[in-house]
């Protein structure tokens, strides 16, 4: 349980800090710091158990069917990272309080930083790889938000997009890799995956899985050739660079290497890919860093180079390489974060980060200069500092590896060269900025930074020194337990100490230091050489490929999506035709085993009428009134078909809906042109006939194949339980209001939404009301025939009575809320037709929207009601009562639900028709028809 609290606290911190906008800076910082400090104390309390070899776990079931849990796990490696994330996070938040200017929104930065902290904690503590991936993506997103913190700057926006594209793309590769891994092992649980090394490495998918996961790691850790996003991410505020882009987020990639080391490492392909990528990145980064004039650019490439070093270590096939890698992760985080913070101070106090302008800062800020120099010395690998120790270990391991066969000696040589470059750029950082003459037109007069702005750097620099001088004293426990986790249960004997005697690694260090210093003194030649090289611009390459991709997509989209709905429909139907038709050709026999029933004359007549109606609709489609009448013939035949084939409820529904539909379409015809122009070419008509005939044949075949096969239905359950469980004998109605009541609730909601949508569409509709019909004849003067008016009026109570009867008997005989609602609606519509909507409006003020809402509310509340009886949502209740003179009567909660359905149907149907019908009540324009003549 405690484990869950660590990321949860930091998430809470994110929410809290986002709400501190009204407070002072100190209050905001204090409140924000509260949560990570609590989390840190918790972690410290858990540490002894982890040091003693225990793995603390905490699991909550989430989607058990997919094997996805919310699972946390704290072992040595996770503990190390949690410490790093929390400690550096706390320092960075503290530092940012002094760094941000009064124009910058502090709550925003803090909220994003804490969100990032949550994501990072989630990655390192996840015990489920899908969950790990989720947090992985969350770091990409929060990194995006943080880089674009100064969103008004173009470079910040571009840098943020680039970082998101590269790390997000890598994240997708990682997801694919993790899914494959989960499939190989049969579980997404990290414990199980880490224990399945043999299964994974023997599997055919091992190589693919490995490469996908490595892609995720390499993009995140800015390994060559994906490194170029990192320098552009430096557009972020410096606290962000210190936290995300040197100490933690870019370490997520190497964390991944460490995390899956027990399961994936040990094969030749791992060693080759990981070590060569690391080596290239190490050299490339160290080389480019020397030539950067921007302080943060220098530090960014140096970070890339150090990440390469760590990656290389994970790719070496020696015993202690992984231990050295972990050690260097700690060391790099401490000295690089402090260097970034020092750079932040320099930038803050002078207004520039350009090393060509910054000179002689020692005189202005001796305190910061001392701190920065110690950290830079650690970066260079100078003895007495932590960077020296891990670099010595690194050199030692390069000597022991056998990676490249007889050419293995190349690796220590290249490592020494990279070391020399590291010394050279560190020397440049120190000498160029703090000495080397006087500053050249600085935007601000430099001075020492505020006292507390230096505090985080002091803490980190002290750490560098302490680890560098008495390593065993400080980091033995955590290094051992982290190595224990990475190496999968054993730790080789090792001792981190300052003095190993005169040996080869010491010689390599000495060569690197002296070579680096020599290189720095001769840097003018190097700069000239570098300037003569063709520039390899990663950003340009990235921009070009992105714009090429966008253009390509645009062209494709324009080809497919040309704005013609007609065309989309054709494409869709062709696709349907293909995919629905294809399986038919693979079937052996269309007709099934069920014996066919003979054709009788009624059915034949009905079918003939239906087909004639359908075909006539098509033939006369350009004369809209006729085709509408033909369509209504089809609808009537469909309703007769339902009667014939034992579906009285459907027949009733179809009949009433048919009436309403035809009235609606008639009304629509008033507002739409009454004729369709002939505009399709013969070829197009032929094509459409082909498509529609094909689809008809395919659907008919499927239908035939379906109904000639025996039925295995789940309906026996409904038939058996309708009376006993639902209290009704009309099974269809019982299904609607009881068994599948939740569906019905959804469906009346759809109905209500459609009606409201229509209401909205008709608001402020400037209609063209034609004065004449299509042939120029004026409309009949007598709009409301007297005969119809008087008959309909006397019919209304009768119709309402019928609908009431249909409603009541619905539970036991054909009928129910839907049908009764439609009958009621038809009765009212008849009044509208006979009298006009003005006449109705004078007598009946109904707000149909309220009716719809109350109908849905009644249905919903009936469902909710069952909660008060301790039952699940929509549990129904019924009981029989004996009432004197009337006899036995059944009362069921389903009846109330059906009332809701009834009201919604009445409301929706009337709203649709009345809203449209009301528009015709306006006097037709006497002016020449505004109708567009086509």
């Amino acid at each position: 349980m405690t484990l869950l609290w660590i990321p949860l606290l930091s998430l809470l911190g994110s929410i809290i800090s986002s709400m501190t906008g009204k407070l002072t800076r100190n209050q905001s910082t204090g409140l924000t710091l509260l949560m990570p400090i609590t989390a840190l104390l918790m972690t410290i309390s858990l540490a002894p158990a982890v040091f003693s070899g225990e793995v603390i776990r905490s699991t909550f079931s989430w989607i058990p069917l997919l094997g996805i849990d919310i699972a946390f796990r704290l072992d040595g490696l996770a503990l190390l990272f949690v410490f790093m994330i929390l400690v550096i996070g706390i320092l960075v938040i503290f530092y940012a309080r002094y760094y941000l200017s009064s124009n910058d929104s502090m709550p925003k930065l803090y909220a994003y930083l804490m969100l990032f902290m949550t994501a990072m904690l989630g990655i390192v503590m996840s015990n489920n790889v899908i969950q790990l991936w989720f947090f992985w993506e969350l770091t990409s997103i929060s990194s995006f938000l943080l880089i674009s913190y100064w969103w008004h700057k173009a470079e910040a926006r571009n840098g943020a997009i680039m970082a998101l594209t590269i790390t997000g793309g890598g994240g997708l590769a990682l997801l694919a890799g993790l899914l494959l891994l989960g499939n190989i092992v049969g579980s997404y649980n990290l414990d199980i995956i880490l224990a399945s090394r043999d299964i994974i490495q023997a599997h055919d998918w091992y190589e693919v899985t490995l490469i996908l996961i490595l892609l995720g790691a390499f993009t995140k850790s800015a390994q060559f050739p994906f490194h170029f996003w990192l320098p552009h991410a430096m557009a972020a505020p410096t606290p962000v660079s210190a936290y995300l882009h040197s100490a933690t987020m870019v370490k997520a990639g190497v964390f991944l290497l460490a995390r899956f080391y027990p399961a994936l490492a040990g094969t030749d392909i791992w060693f080759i890919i990981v070590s060569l990528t690391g080596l290239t990145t190490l050299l490339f980064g160290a080389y480019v860093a020397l030539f950067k004039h921007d302080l943060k650019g220098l530090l960014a490439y140096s970070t890339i180079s150090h990440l390469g070093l760590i990656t290389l270590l994970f790719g070496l096939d020696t015993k202690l390489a992984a231990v050295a890698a972990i050690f260097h992760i700690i060391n790099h985080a401490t000295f690089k974060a402090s260097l970034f913070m020092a750079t932040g101070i320099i930038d803050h106090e002078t207004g520039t980060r350009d090393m060509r302008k910054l000179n002689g800062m020692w005189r202005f800020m001796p305190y910061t200069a001392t701190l920065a120099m110690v950290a830079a010395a650690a970066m260079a690998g100078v003895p007495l500092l932590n960077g020296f120790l891990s670099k010595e270990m690194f050199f030692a391991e390069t000597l022991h590896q056998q990676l490249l066969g007889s050419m293995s000696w190349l690796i220590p040589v290249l490592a020494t060269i990279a070391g020399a470059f590291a010394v050279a750029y560190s020397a440049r950082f120190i000498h160029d900025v703090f000495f080397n003459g006087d500053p050249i037109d600085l935007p601000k007069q430099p001075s020492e930074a505020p006292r507390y702005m230096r505090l985080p750097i002091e803490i980190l620099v002290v750490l560098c020194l302490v680890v560098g001088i008495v390593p065993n004293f400080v980091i033995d426990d955590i290094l051992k337990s982290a190595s224990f986790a990475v190496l999968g249960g054993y730790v080789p004997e090792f001792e981190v100490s300052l003095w190993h005697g005169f040996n080869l690694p010491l010689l390599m260090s000495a060569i690197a230091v002296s070579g680096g210093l020599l290189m720095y003194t001769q840097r003018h030649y190097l700069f000239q050489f570098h300037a003569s090289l063709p520039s390899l611009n990663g950003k340009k390459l990235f921009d070009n490929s992105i714009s090429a991709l966008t253009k390509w997509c645009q062209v494709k989209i324009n080809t497919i999506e040309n704005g013609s709905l007609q065309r989309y429909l054709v494409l869709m139907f062709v696709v349907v035709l293909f995919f629905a038709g294809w399986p038919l050709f693979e079937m052996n026999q269309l007709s099934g085993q069920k014996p066919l029933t003979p054709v009788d004359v009624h059915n034949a007549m009905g079918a003939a009428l239906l087909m004639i109606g359908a075909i006539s609709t098509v033939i006369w489609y350009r004369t809209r009134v006729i085709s509408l009448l033909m369509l209504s013939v089809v609808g009537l035949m469909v309703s007769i078909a339902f009667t014939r084939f034992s579906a009285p409820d459907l027949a009733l529904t179809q009949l009433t809906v048919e009436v309403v539909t035809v009235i609606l379409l008639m009304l629509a015809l008033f507002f739409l042109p009454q004729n369709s122009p002939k505009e399709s070419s013969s070829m197009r008509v032929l094509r459409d006939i082909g498509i529609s005939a094909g689809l008809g044949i395919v659907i008919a075949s499927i239908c035939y194949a379906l109904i000639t096969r025996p039925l295995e239905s789940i309906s026996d359950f409904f038939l058996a339980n309708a009376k006993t469980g639902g209290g009704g004998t009309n099974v269809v109605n019982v299904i609607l209001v009881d068994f599948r009541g939740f569906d019905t609730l959804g469906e009346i909601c759809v109905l209500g939404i459609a009606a409201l949508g229509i209401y909205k569409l008709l608001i402020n509709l400037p209609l063209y009301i034609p004065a004449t019909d299509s042939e120029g004849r004026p409309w009949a003067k007598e709009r409301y025939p007297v005969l119809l008016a008087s008959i309909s009026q006397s019919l209304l109570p009768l119709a309402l009575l019928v609908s009431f009867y249909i409603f009541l008997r619905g539970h036991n005989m054909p009928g129910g809320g839907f049908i009764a609602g439609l009958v009621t609606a038809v009765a009212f519509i008849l009044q509208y037709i006979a009298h006009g909507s003005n006449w109705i409006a004078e007598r009946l003020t109904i707000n149909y929207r309220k009716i719809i809402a109350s109908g849905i509310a009644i249905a919903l509340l009936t469902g909710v009601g069952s909660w008060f009886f301790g039952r699940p949502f929509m549990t129904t209740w019924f009981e029989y009562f004996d009432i004197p003179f009337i006899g036995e009567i059944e009362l069921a909660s389903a009846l109330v639900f059906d009332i809701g359905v009834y009201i919604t149907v009445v409301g929706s149907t009337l709203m649709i028709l009345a809203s449209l019908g009301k528009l015709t009540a306006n006097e037709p324009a006497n002016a020449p028809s505004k109708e567009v003549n086509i």
Partner: protein
Amino acid sequence: MELLYASSVGVLVSCGVFLILRSRTFPVVLGLTMFSYAVNLFLFSSGRLSLNQAAVLGTSTEYADPLPQALVLTAIVIGFAMTAFVVILAIRGRTDLGNDHVDGQVPDTNNHNNDNNNKVKV
């Protein structure tokens, strides 16, 4: 009878699809309505065809499958709502765009077959 039923569904599908592929909104609405008849009949038939076996308990010894019936019943009502929505959309489109072509504008190339060739620019 099964063959007759299936062919009727097929004819409805064909006519519906043909109308849906027309270029003016009203035939498309007619086509959609016809298509939904076909779909309802198709879904209904997944309970197989049976005569005189309405699923009302106590009226016969065997019953037609009530489940597809219940599904189709709501489908009919919702189908009406959708038809209504499309019709109103067509009216709105006609008003706002000035024509009743499904693409929102009358393509110039297709007009050579017009009965009256005096096109109105919209």
